């Protein structure tokens, strides 16, 4: 292995603590990742030396903060390989990014009888905004089905494609299954019918290289807090041609060009979609998290995380009555499973008492749970700082769970 995990772990202060007198094992990275020192330091530096409102001021701090803020935007642009920095909109997170598009795009382009296409493995944040948009515009929400392995049924998808579909919204990587979806194929097919595609990239950014130009997606959404960055900030990438045509979403502040009580005109991209005082501190810290990502190498990340996934999967297979949920061969380091005879909630409580943090429940993907007819799963999701020791501890914990419930 060419990365030094021990050194990486030193960058994450939170990992170095004991829970119930046991070293802390954090395997809930799909929910949120921990933050390296540089991210935390950026927040401190900003508030101790630079804090100011931006864009409007003639004064030194305001200018400096504005410049730093726009630098962050440029950094995101090149990180995801967008054509223009004004195609990068800062939001409060993936959920807001999706809501923005669902509201603004659909107001403009979705009409009675039209369709929106999503999949059966979406996060609630990529279901409900579209349900509401369809309701409001008298359109229909259609669902790409999945197979037992937790993969999109692509043949069904191709059959469903039709001219009534105005937008397709799917996750790049599933948060409860770990499946990496064949988004390029979907985008290509959609574009043949001039249908734009939004990718929910919340789970992708920390694991795989995202290149919006290569993907040719029309919208890409992600959250800072899932890519080693701070909470309260996210990104909406959108192709200029769409963003320009869409009406503003929230209004007030810098997104306005001129206001009279008769008529208001809106500012250009990206400002048009950034209402109110932006979350400057967290936007600056987000850049640090992407710098951290850049300091690694995606091949190394994938090799390390894949090793952990394999190691965990193989060890789980040794246990009795384990059922895996999400068994695609194309997966990130998310392992969802259940003991067939033990409720995930019970498993979670015992693991917690042993200092092991996994997530149990439906992971905001209730339709998947309904599909598999289970109440939820136990989900272990690995990040770059996890180790085989973490996995050993989890396996040990699960053996103890088995003992407690038999």
């Amino acid at each position: 292995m060419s990365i030094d995990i021990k050194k990486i772990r030193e960058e994450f202060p939170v990992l170095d603590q004991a829970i119930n007198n046991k070293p802390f094992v954090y395997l809930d990275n799909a929910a949120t990742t921990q933050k390296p020192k540089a991210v935390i330091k950026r927040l401190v530096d900003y508030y101790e030396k630079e804090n100011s409102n931006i864009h409007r001021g003639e004064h030194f701090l305001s200018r400096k903060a504005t410049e730093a803020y726009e630098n962050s935007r440029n950094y995101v642009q090149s990180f995801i390989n967008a054509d223009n920095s004004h195609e990068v909109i800062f939001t409060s997170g993936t959920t807001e990014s999706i809501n923005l598009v669902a509201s603004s795009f659909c107001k403009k382009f979705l009409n009675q009888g039209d369709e929106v296409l999503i999949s059966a493995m979406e996060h609630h944040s990529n279901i409900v905004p579209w349900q509401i948009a369809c309701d409001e515009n008298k359109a229909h929400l259609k669902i790409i089905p999945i197979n037992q392995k937790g993969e999109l049924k692509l043949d069904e998808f191709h059959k469903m494609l039709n001219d009534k579909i105005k937008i397709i919204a799917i996750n790049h990587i599933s948060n409860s299954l770990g499946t990496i979806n064949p988004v390029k194929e979907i985008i290509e097919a959609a574009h043949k019918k001039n249908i734009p595609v939004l990718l929910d990239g919340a789970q992708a950014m920390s694991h795989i290289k995202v290149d919006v130009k290569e993907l040719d997606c029309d919208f890409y959404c992600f959250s800072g807090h899932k890519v080693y960055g701070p909470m309260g900030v996210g990104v909406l990438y959108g192709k200029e041609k769409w963003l320009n045509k869409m009406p503003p979403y929230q209004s007030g502040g810098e997104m306005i060009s001129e206001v009279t009580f008769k008529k208001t005109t809106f500012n250009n991209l990206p400002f048009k979609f950034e209402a109110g005082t932006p979350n400057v501190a967290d936007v600056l810290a987000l850049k640090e998290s992407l710098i951290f990502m850049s300091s690694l190498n995606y091949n190394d990340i994938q090799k390390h995380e894949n090793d952990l996934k394999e190691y965990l999967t193989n060890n789980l297979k040794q246990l009795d009555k384990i059922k895996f949920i999400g068994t695609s061969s194309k997966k990130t380091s998310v392992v969802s499973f259940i003991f067939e005879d033990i409720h995930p909630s019970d498993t979670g409580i015992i693991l917690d008492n042993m200092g092991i943090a996994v997530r149990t429940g439906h992971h905001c993907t209730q339709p998947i749970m309904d599909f598999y007819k289970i109440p939820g799963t136990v989900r272990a999701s690995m990040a770059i700082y996890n180790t085989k020791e973490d996995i050993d501890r989890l396996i040990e914990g699960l053996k103890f769970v088995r003992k407690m419930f038999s």
Partner: protein
Amino acid sequence: MKNIKDVESEIISEFEAFDDWTDKYNYIIKDLGSSIPEIETEYKQPKYLIKGCQAQVWLHASYKDGKVFFTADSDAQITKGIISLLLRVLSERTPDEILNADLKFIDDIGLKEHLSPTRANGLTNMIKQIKLYAMAFKTKEKKA
């Protein structure tokens, strides 16, 4: 019948006997779970399901001679054990007794975390539901 405070003290001393969390949870899972006044199958349906629990929880209440009788069940063992504790304290009580119960004993026996204001640990919702039942029966009685 002992009053609520007495039962609570009883439970607290039971739990004081445990050396560590393992023993405690063993007791909750093995002993308490099976001592729950189990809900009749006819009531084990969506109508009696408590919303917002990660585990499914069914709760039924009936009223007789001025007292509320609860039966319940859950598909998760630990949840079931804790419910069983709650019913030991709150079942067969008058509406007023139920409404006035502060249930601080949960804290004292180190299970407060299960009542935190989260959705996952929706036992809070169950307690709310128990109190709603008590309130309903009380109002009904007054009217009658």
